[in-house]
């Protein structure tokens, strides 16, 4: 095939790489040169020459192109800075708006990214599931697993690679200086396989070490290893004493192993009977690793098949009827979901909230830039009529908004940093991975992307608007003194109405949370938290083997505490209020018939000394208090809570009645109810109190609840600042037994605060967002109304010259602004009505469609809007007609 032309590929390449507006010229010239070369030097030289040209020329052209743009942009930037300095109000408002919007959004995004999006530090964490059980027939959800169940599931289920149990607890470290409380987790050796975790030094547990009676071993956390052994590899093989019992150290975990939370000091094996014939209690959280390709739903169906086989495996506890009436079912769900579960709705609401703030901020900035673009429309029209190029204007607008966005973005990072510190400091304790949250790369990338998008959008709006502007019209309009067309005002009114609507949604959300918080403050927890010191004391089984020994210790320690000056009352309880539910067990009431096939109702049980009620100011409703004689003589007396009397005594007085715990065919001896006490919010302020039985430390003969008294909480009411007596308490303890430590020392007030923290946090964040939203909305409204009014100065002057008075003018301007507000208000109310139901889970004793909140929020918004329009309206009413007309 004969081919006279230049090499096709080179032509294509040159065409592709040239800047579009020079392509024709360059290609044409190149082809012509090729023909000349061909004639003089022959085809191969001509071809070579063409190739060189195709490779080199585009580089030259683009280099020039970029240089031109940069020079132009630099000029424009200088120009823009001068312009911004001339209008400091506009500049400050825009930059601040951007900074607040970007800052708040990136801060919340950081939290969401750290808590919700970041995956767990375990390989294939998506295959990790938590196994729980519900008993819907008894209103119980989320029960942990049991040892017998674990063995049964491990044998019979087909959905898991491996299953494991664990239980976190505190222990006393002894034999290394002063005894102290440390955090440890007992876990089945299989847990390391479930989590795919390896020891950094030494080894993890062997499966033999998880069998009852095996030698006691321990694996240390990286932090504990550093703290206690100064990272000495020789630690492996040494012996550690927990409450006097020796454990051999077999390994150290890597620094990022933080199971189940970062506070862990060490891990010891949970030793089980491999035959697993005993069911055990629902006391151990269970984790498992799903087989490849198995979904949590499939695994749950698999386990529910096994639940039906409970009666054949554990005949002494389950009958098919009981399982049916209790509605027992397995619940298999992602472990990640479990960790972030409670906090997810809070974070999602916060994320939605800041997105709204960002949208309001965007609308505001867009509005400000539109106003600016319109006020310069005349200049632009004239300049383009005189031949200024389109490129020139695009370069100008993009540079201008880039400058704004960069400044706003930089300030926004500062705002973000500050709000993040604030959020992390104020965040609820249970916010997972809170301590790991920081402004990391992905967050900065997010901010950069946001800034870029904003820049392009803001740059584009004025450039596109002005490009379409018909020159003659703009100039003529300008001559009339109203540079703004009807369309412009409509766009900006829409933007403002949108801002009002978003601000209203924010206000409703924050109002609902505020009311919830008030309701929470008003909750009577059933006890008085003021001036109460609390701490836990765990007694090692080696030196305090039975209930008598433990009761003796607590009795003597309480006596010594009561002797400290400033102490008004002191008592112990097996679990402090607001510390979650304690031990649960079925209750039987003498004389109250129960359905033999139903599992009896569940109540909570606590062991106390009489001083506990006095220290916390819990009131007696009927009967008498427990006395020291009840314990010493093992009279079998108990107290019950009011709720228990109401729910389980069939309308009868509880005092004088008898209760016991266990199952109908297998229960403890009866205990005599001697008194009824007020309900206490034992689980949490937001959870209704549950029926409670209070046992003395020494219970009636044959009552098997002694295990309640292993670790006891002290409650000490003081006449002085509660923490001031801590040294005396420590000394009293040291005098009695120097191997025991105080754990989790805190005042009761602080515990109440901590219980309120999650809602206080949500309320604070939402209130901040709502205030910013309202402020930005008001600024937007003020900006548009005053701008439009300013543009109409001439018209207003004419009206006033024709006899309109100040009141009429003011009314005209205000009504114009309020029309926009009301439109936004209506849309906002509807949106808030729809959206607020998503936050029902965060609310407390307030309905998501609470009319009072909606009404008062709308009122606030109307007031603020009125103020924002009043200022320009008043200014307009002061217009001097002569001045106004002359200015035109």
């Amino acid at each position: 095939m004969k081919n006279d032309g230049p090499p096709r590929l080179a032509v294509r390449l040159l065409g592709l790489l040239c800047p579009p507006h020079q392509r024709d010229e360059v290609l044409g010239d190149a082809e012509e040169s090729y023909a000349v070369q061909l004639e003089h030097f022959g085809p191969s030289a001509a071809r070579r020459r063409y190739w060189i040209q195709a490779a080199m020329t585009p580089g030259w052209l683009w280099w020039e192109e970029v240089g031109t743009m940069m020079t132009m942009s630099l000029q424009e930037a200088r120009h823009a800075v001068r312009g911004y300095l001339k209008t400091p109000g506009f500049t400050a408002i825009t930059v601040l708006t951007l900074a607040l919007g970007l800052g708040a959004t990136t801060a919340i995004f950081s939290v969401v990214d750290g808590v919700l999006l970041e995956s767990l530090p375990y390989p294939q964490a998506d295959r990790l599931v938590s196994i729980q059980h519900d008993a819907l027939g008894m209103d119980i959800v989320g029960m942990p697993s049991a040892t017998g169940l674990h063995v049964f599931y491990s044998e019979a289920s087909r959905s898991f690679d491996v299953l494991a149990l664990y239980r976190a607890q505190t222990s006393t470290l002894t034999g290394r200086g002063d005894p102290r409380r440390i955090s440890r987790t007992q876990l089945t050796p299989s847990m390391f396989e479930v989590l795919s975790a390896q020891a950094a030094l030494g080894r993890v547990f062997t499966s033999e070490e998880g069998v009852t009676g095996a030698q006691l071993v321990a694996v240390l956390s990286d932090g504990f290893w550093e703290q206690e052994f100064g990272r000495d590899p020789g630690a492996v093989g040494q012996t550690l004493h927990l409450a006097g019992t020796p454990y051999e150290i077999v390994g150290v975990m890597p620094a990022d192993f933080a199971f189940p939370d970062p506070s862990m000091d060490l891990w010891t094996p949970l030793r089980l009977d491999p035959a697993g014939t005993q069911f055990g209690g629902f006391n151990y959280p269970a984790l498992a690793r799903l087989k490849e390709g198995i979904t949590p739903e499939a695994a749950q169906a698999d386990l529910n098949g096994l639940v039906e086989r409970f009666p054949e495996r554990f005949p002494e506890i389950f009958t098919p009827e009981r399982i049916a009436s209790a509605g027992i079912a397995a619940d298999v769900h992602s472990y990640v979901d479990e960790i972030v579960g409670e906090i997810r709705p809070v974070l999602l609401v916060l994320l939605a909230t800041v997105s709204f703030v960002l949208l309001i901020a965007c609308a505001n900035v867009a509005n400000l830039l539109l106003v600016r673009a319109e006020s310069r429309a005349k200049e632009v029209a004239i300049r383009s009529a005189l031949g200024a190029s389109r490129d020139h204007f695009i370069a100008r607008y993009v540079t201008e908004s880039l400058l704004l966005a960069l400044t706003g973005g930089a300030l926004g990072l500062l705002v973000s940093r500050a709000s993040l510190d604030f959020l992390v400091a104020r965040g609820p304790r249970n916010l997972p991975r809170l301590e790991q949250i920081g402004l990391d790369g992905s967050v900065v990338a997010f901010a950069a992307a946001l800034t870029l998008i904003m820049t392009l959008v803001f740059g584009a709006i004025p450039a596109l608007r002005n490009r379409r502007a018909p020159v003659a019209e703009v100039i003529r309009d300008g001559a009339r003194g109203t540079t703004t067309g009807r369309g412009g005002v409509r766009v900006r009114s829409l933007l403002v109405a949108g801002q009002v609507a978003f601000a209203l949604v924010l206000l409703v959300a924050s109002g609902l949370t505020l009311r919830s918080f008030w309701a929470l403050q008003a909750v009577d927890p059933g006890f008085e938290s003021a001036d109460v010191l609390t701490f836990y004391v765990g007694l090692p089984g080696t030196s305090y083997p039975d209930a008598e020994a433990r009761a003796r210790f607590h009795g003597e320690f309480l006596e010594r505490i009561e002797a400290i000056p400033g102490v008004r009352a002191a008592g112990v309880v097996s679990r402090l209020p607001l510390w979650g539910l304690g031990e649960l067990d079925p209750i039987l009431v003498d004389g109250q018939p129960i359905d033999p096939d139903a599992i009896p109702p569940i109540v909570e049980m606590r062991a106390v000394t009489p001083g506990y009620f006095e220290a916390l100011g819990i009131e007696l409703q009927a009967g008498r208090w427990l006395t020291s004689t009840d314990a010493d003589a093992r009279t079998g007396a108990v107290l019950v809570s009011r709720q228990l009397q109401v729910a389980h005594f069939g309308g009868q007085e509880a005092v004088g009645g008898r209760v016991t715990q266990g199952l109908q065919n297998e229960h403890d001896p009866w205990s005599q109810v001697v008194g009824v006490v007020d309900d206490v919010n034992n689980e949490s302020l937001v959870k209704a109190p549950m029926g409670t039985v209070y046992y003395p430390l020494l219970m009636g003969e044959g009552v098997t609840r002694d295990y309640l008294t292993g670790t006891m909480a002290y409650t000490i009411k003081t006449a002085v600042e509660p923490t001031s007596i801590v040294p005396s308490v420590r000394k009293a303890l040291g005098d009695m037994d120097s191997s025991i430590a105080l754990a989790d020392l805190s005042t009761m007030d602080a515990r109440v605060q901590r219980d309120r923290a999650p809602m206080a946090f949500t309320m604070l964040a939402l209130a901040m967002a709502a205030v910013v939203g309202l402020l930005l909305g008001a600024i937007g409204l003020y900006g548009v109304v005053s701008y439009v009014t300013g543009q109409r100065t001439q018209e207003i002057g004419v009206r006033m010259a024709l006899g309109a008075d100040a009141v009429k003018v003011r009314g005209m301007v205000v009504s114009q602004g309020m029309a926009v507000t009301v439109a936004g208000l209506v849309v906002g109310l509807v949106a808030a009505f729809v959206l607020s139901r998503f936050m029902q889970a965060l609310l407390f004793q307030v309905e998501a469609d609470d009319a009072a909140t909606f009404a008062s929020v709308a009122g606030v918004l109307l007031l603020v809007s009125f103020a924002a329009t009043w200022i320009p309206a008043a200014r307009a009413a002061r217009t001097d007609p002569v001045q106004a007309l002359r200015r035109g």
Partner: protein
Amino acid sequence: MTRTSLGEFEKLVMLAVLRLGAGAYGATIIQGLEERTGRTTSPGAVYVSLRRLEKKGMVSSRLGDPSPTRGGRPKRYYAVEREGILRLRQAQEDWSTMVCGLEGTLEQTP
């Protein structure tokens, strides 16, 4: 407007355009430069110079009609503006003034 400087190559390009008259467009300018100077010329450098000269107002250009001899692509014709001619003249005068009295030195050096 500030007095922008003119590069040596830019002057050569302008002279080539002047010499070609009405027939000055990319391909002929490049050929003209190569023939006169006897050096291979990079087309990219020529285009960049022309663009800069145009921005400085010394050269103007207009797009011609598409011509069949070059794949149907139009030529862009260039012409030197008054400002360009003034600057060339100035450069020529500067050159003569500076060279005056040095002719001997310049020619004696082998």
